[in-house]
């Protein structure tokens, strides 16, 4: 179980180091180290990105916010414009692990871990984020993530940053149903963004976590909602639609049955929250 540990100073060196077989890129290490301890991976070399200054930045312009790959969750929470522009991302990140985990963990690590329960990831799905790869490609988040733990990132490449396009919403919501209040992995998570027209929904995005191999955006529910008024009847219909579309499994945190019903019930938060549109 012995491996070498390297901290390249720049991206060129990083690229060289990670091309070697058995090498793993590490940001905060909060997923990587757990996997090593569990024996799920046996790296020969760990290449840390932490000392590369060109990856440590947050940029903002009129259209988007760009988050460098070594920016931690804690740094994001402290970055005021993020909360204003993407409150749903703020809320999601706020539930990740504990202060210690958020001090080390990064949003890029959360994406690369590609867990169906990834909390930051769910918000990125809602926000139509793009992943910038070291080869110059920018890929939509839902195309970047393939299945649990798998992405399309080519071997020898790394993630430079995450681009989140700015968009205006009237309502946002994120909730993680976990076994306890914090330091918890979701049994089911849900997030939505709603833009109201004059009398009805103009635009709605909705995503679920832990109910499919990846985060699940329900595009047909989104389409269906356009032009509808939010009332109990609407919620009732959508709640049934959701139940049919999620595809959870049984695991140590909860049964598939429970998860299905949870997703459906969580739609009633719209009523509980008193969202009018």
């Amino acid at each position, binding site marked *: *179980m*012995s491996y070498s540990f390297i901290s390249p100073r720049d991206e060129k060196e990083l690229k060289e180091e990670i091309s070697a077989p058995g090498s793993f890129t590490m940001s905060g290490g909060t997923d990587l180290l757990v996997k090593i301890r569990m024996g799920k991976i046996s790296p020969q070399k760990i290449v840390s990105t932490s000392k590369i200054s060109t990856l440590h930045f947050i940029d903002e312009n009129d259209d988007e916010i760009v988050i460098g790959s070594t920016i931690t969750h804690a740094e994001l929470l402290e970055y005021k414009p993020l909360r204003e522009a993407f409150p749903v991302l703020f809320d999601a990140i706020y539930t990740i692990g*504990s202060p210690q985990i958020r001090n080390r963990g990064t949003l890029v690590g959360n994406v690369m871990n590609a867990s169906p329960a990834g909390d930051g990831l769910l918000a990125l799905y809602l926000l139509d984020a793009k992943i910038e790869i070291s080869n110059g490609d920018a890929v939509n988040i839902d195309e970047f993530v393939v299945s649990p733990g798998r992405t399309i990132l080519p071997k020898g490449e790394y993630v430079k940053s995450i681009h989140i396009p700015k968009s205006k919403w009237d309502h946002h919501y994120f909730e993680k*149903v976990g*076994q*306890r*209040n*914090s*330091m*918890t*992995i979701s*049994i089911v998570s849900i997030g939505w963004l709603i833009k109201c027209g004059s009398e009805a929904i103009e635009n709605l995005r909705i995503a679920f976590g832990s109910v499919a191999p990846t985060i699940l955006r329900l595009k047909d529910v989104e389409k269906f909602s356009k032009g509808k008024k939010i009332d109990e009847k609407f919620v009732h219909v959508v709640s049934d639609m959701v139940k049919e579309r999620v595809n959870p499994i049984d695991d*140590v*945190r*909860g*049964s598939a049955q*429970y998860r299905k*019903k*949870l997703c459906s*019930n*969580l739609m*009633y*938060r719209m*009523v*509980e929250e008193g969202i009018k549109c």
Partner: protein
Amino acid sequence: MGTFTKKRDYSVIGKEIPRVDSLVKVKGKAKFVADFDMKDMLYGALVLSKRARGRVKKIDVSKASSLKGVRAILTYEDIPGENQIGEVVNDMPCLVPVGEEVRYYGDVISLVAADSLEIAKEAVKLVKVEYEDLEPVLTIEKALKNEVKIHPSGNILTSKKIRKGNVEKGFFESDFVIEDDFYAHYQEQAYLEPQGILSLYDNNYGITIYGSMQCPYYVQEMVPKVLGMSMHSVRVIQAETGGAFGGKEDVPSYVASQCALLTYHTKKPVLLVYSREVDIQTTSKRHPIKSHYKLGVTEDGKIKAVEITAHMDMGAYATLSPIVMYRSLVHAAGAYDIENVKVDIDGVYTNKVPCGAFRGFGSPQVLFAMESIVDEAAEKLRMDPMDIRLKNALRIGSRTSTDQLLTESVGAVKTIEHAMEISNYAELKKEMAAFNLENKFKKRGIGVSHIIYGISLGAAGQHLDAAGSLVQVHRDGSVNIHIGNTEMGQGAKTVIAMIASEALGQSIEKIRVDNPDTSYVQDSGPTVASRATVFSGNAVKKACEKIKARMEEYFSKTRNVSVEEIVFKNGAIKTVDNKHKILFDSLANECYNSNTKMVERGWFVSPKLRWNSETGLGEAYITYAYATQVVVAEVDMLTGKSQVIEAYTSHDVGKKLNPVGLVGQVQGGFVQGMGYGLFEEIKTTDGRITTDNFNTYIIPTISDIPQKLKIDFVEDAYSQGPFGAKGIGEPSLMPVPASIANAISNAVRKRVKRIPATAEYVFNIIEEVIK
């Protein structure tokens, strides 16, 4: 005519004293077993059964032995002494022999010692074990059929009963008879520090064991048996212990036997520290208990009869189950004065992890069931849950469910009154009703519980119920105290130092309570059952009083004053008229110069109890603690998730010795009980535990604790306790699962019949209620 008690003015007892061991622990200077490092030290690791049930056909260690750095690989053939072990029944192999059955996923087959932990773990993987697969018994129901026998004697090891009065008559006289089934699941102790032992070999002495443990004397008895040595060749010293909760009562004896075997064969120091996974997978838990309760009440709320049958899942081996069962038996009918009681409890073997000791020792499971059925009765009678408890509560002159006459220190009723007062109970009920009227998706409920808890080992453990001390005052006035009970985070050292300080008159800073070492003090029984304060406390008090008497005598002679005029307090000795004054330290020096004996032993033996195991009647425990609790829980009706919002708890502790320690115990007990009530859940697949780390075995964090936890104490002194005190360690947890379950039931208007009442469980019982 009451007894006259002189109002005492204590200088340390009852004061807020900081923990004497806190600084070294907070600074990280205290050494725990895993911190030990020694020249030539080897690392131990275990080869565990990968089957819930199977016959071992072959153990091939050849590949593992040839690995560089491996120093020993041991199997049952290498055991010089006895291989069949057990704290109560010898039904467990130290190492499973070829041809014999493994009985749970986690049975130990072989032991490895190597130069590093990595090599040891690598070697474990290379040991090849061949099994013949056998059908496992994984449920109580299947075990009761006895078709597959886990042990040759059958699947029920022991049964215990209570026969008090005539329940048939009691039910006949009742206006209502209600029945229900309850289930309480496993709970893992989740101590911060996993099991760990360091064993050393010395040509002159034999084997010395350092370890994280509650009961050094258990270890000192078992290790020599396995090694085929006599007890004087094995010395056991408790290392700092990072939490135990019962999980380090008997288990360290097995860990120490494994570790000592490796030292015996290699003659080298061996460190054996369990990983969290191995610890959760293989070591004892709280017993799952299935129970059926039948309760008869009259229209005005008097409980006339209770009939209980219960089965506890012991797992693969008996370990401490027969004694745990005794406590379940005595506590099954709760804290009430009931004329007719019938209880039957069976201990059942299954091919799962052996269950054993855990804070409360078989009683929170049955107290939860009893408190639930009492609530159901109250509901049926449209009576307030507090009123029905008050009506049936124990008082002086009452008889417990084992027909024990209570003659002193019964603060039960006071705890009910206090709980109502501190929770502003009537107001709380109104607030809750208002909340529920306003909220559709969140519902709140109030839950009440009222419990009794037997202090110390009770009639079934009388042979162990004594404790010793060795107190030595040095020439400079500093004091060493040796006791046989352990500090494991609960604050034993602090309360012992306080008792010594009060009894000697020396200031507490000059008193050091040492970790137990079996070569100093005679077997003082286990540190369990909330007995350390009462037992070791009394033993220390006695020894200190003897030394103090001698110092008084010396002072009186040399100053020519009468003993009555002398006051020992906070490190100084004075005469009442203030004419003579001396520091304790200086007087100690004078005593030394005049050849005064400054070392003493104390020995405290439990008052004898009369008990009939045929009828389950008699004096079950020397005394009892009582508590009443009120909690408010909020249930999210869309997810089934429950949150404790507020809690109020009143405990009869006899006498508050260390208020800070008491509050700490009650807070800790509350949180641990809440975890059990709400979400701590052991899950298994084919008998293998799948929740074997803290990412899947969910214990409370700071964000789950209620915003408000109000703690109150009732002081109804116990004459045999040091300064009147009774224990608190376990009573602190006992009311919690019950009150939470009752609060959830009250919120969702459906009865919670299983703990933990996880979100998924509650969701399922309320499902129909929602839409």
